């Protein structure tokens, strides 16, 4: 089996896992569940990007993954500060 | 607002510059001969890291500024991160696997645990280590009468006694962190 195919397949698995979490994002009873689910979707999409970078042998996807990671962290800290009423 | 100390400024600048070199791939230029240094990138990185350190040094460094550059402590830190903490992480992940797929019953609750670490960095490092292991989340740190307490959400409360719960949550991590930040 070729390595690129394996990487693409596992990237697709990560995207499917992220899509499963959309259920929690929509239904989640409290806003905290939604924030955590959005954070986890961000991480899973990042992992898919890393695997695509390996499959296509280009490191440009890694820069995008780094930017997404930073934005996800800032976003979830922002949400928690807003919930505490200090924003 | 606190004043920025010069030593704090200096160590933050060095760390920022190292990070810049890592991200722009200039450290790799040492290894690969066909990818030479670029003076522009080096100078821009120096200016940006000085500016960043001017603004942010007072938030990062409160105690000894040059701790980070002590090689013995760095080796201890690497041993802690790569062996001790990784082992705790794997154990906790496997037990989380058992909880999720119904092999063990969950029993959530919030317990209060005492710690006797003194340095601020050590306290926050222990809190972060506890949060990173699945199954325990540090919710708050409180200080009263000179002692420091963590409030920890624990997915399987086996004991409510402060000492036993502390031993079972912190494990060997607290000993190593005390050794690192002594």
């Amino acid at each position: 089996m070729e390595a690129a195919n394996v990487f693409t397949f596992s990237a697709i698995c990560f995207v499917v896992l992220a899509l499963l979490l959309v259920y929690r994002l929509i239904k989640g009873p409290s806003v905290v569940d939604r924030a955590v689910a959005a954070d986890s979707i961000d991480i899973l999409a990042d992992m898919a990007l890393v695997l695509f970078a390996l499959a296509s042998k280009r490191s440009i996807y890694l820069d995008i993954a780094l930017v997404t990671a930073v934005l996800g962290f800032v976003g979830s800290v922002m949400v928690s500060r807003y919930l505490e009423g200090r924003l | 607002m606190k004043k920025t100390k010069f030593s704090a400024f200096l160590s933050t600048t060095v760390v920022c510059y190292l990070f810049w070199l890592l991200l722009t791939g200039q450290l790799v230029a040492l290894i690969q001969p066909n990818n030479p240094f670029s003076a522009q990138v080096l100078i821009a990185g120096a200016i940006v890291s000085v500016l960043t350190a001017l603004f942010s040094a007072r938030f990062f460094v409160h105690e000894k500024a040059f701790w980070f550059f002590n090689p013995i402590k760095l080796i201890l830190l690497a041993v802690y991160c790569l062996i001790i903490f990784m082992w705790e992480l794997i154990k906790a992940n496997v037990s989380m696997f058992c909880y999720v797929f119904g092999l063990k019953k969950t029993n959530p609750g919030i317990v209060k645990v005492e710690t006797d670490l003194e340095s601020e960095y050590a306290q926050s490092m222990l809190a972060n280590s506890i949060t990173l292991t699945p199954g325990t989340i540090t919710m708050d740190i409180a200080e009263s009468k000179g002692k420091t307490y963590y409030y920890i959400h624990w997915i399987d409360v086996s004991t409510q006694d402060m000492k036993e719960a502390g031993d079972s949550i912190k494990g060997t991590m607290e000993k190593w962190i005390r050794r690192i930040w002594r």
Partner: protein
Amino acid sequence: MMDYVIYAFIAVSLIFALTGVVGMLRFKDSYSRMQASTCISTLGVLGVIIGAIIYSVAELSDISMAVKLGVLGLFYIVTSPISGHAIAKAAYRRGVRPEKKMKCDKYGEDLEDDN
């Protein structure tokens, strides 16, 4: 031979990401779901990152890519607990409580004492 090591790391990562996702869908209260999401951001990330570092050094011989991957993994390990306990504390202060009563709740008792 090296390929199979990389595949094994990615498989470990997929297993623990699946654990986290199933836990987030299946657990009953918010805090337990938060615990399950920690699973995704620790071993779920580290497996892929370590496998990718091995691949980019051994097969692609592209060291700058490996360094970038290392920075990405370090960033995740440093930041995920911070957002974790920020969100947990905010949820408690906001008044999110599990439906089934928790076995013990020392934090709530101490907060009531303060007020």
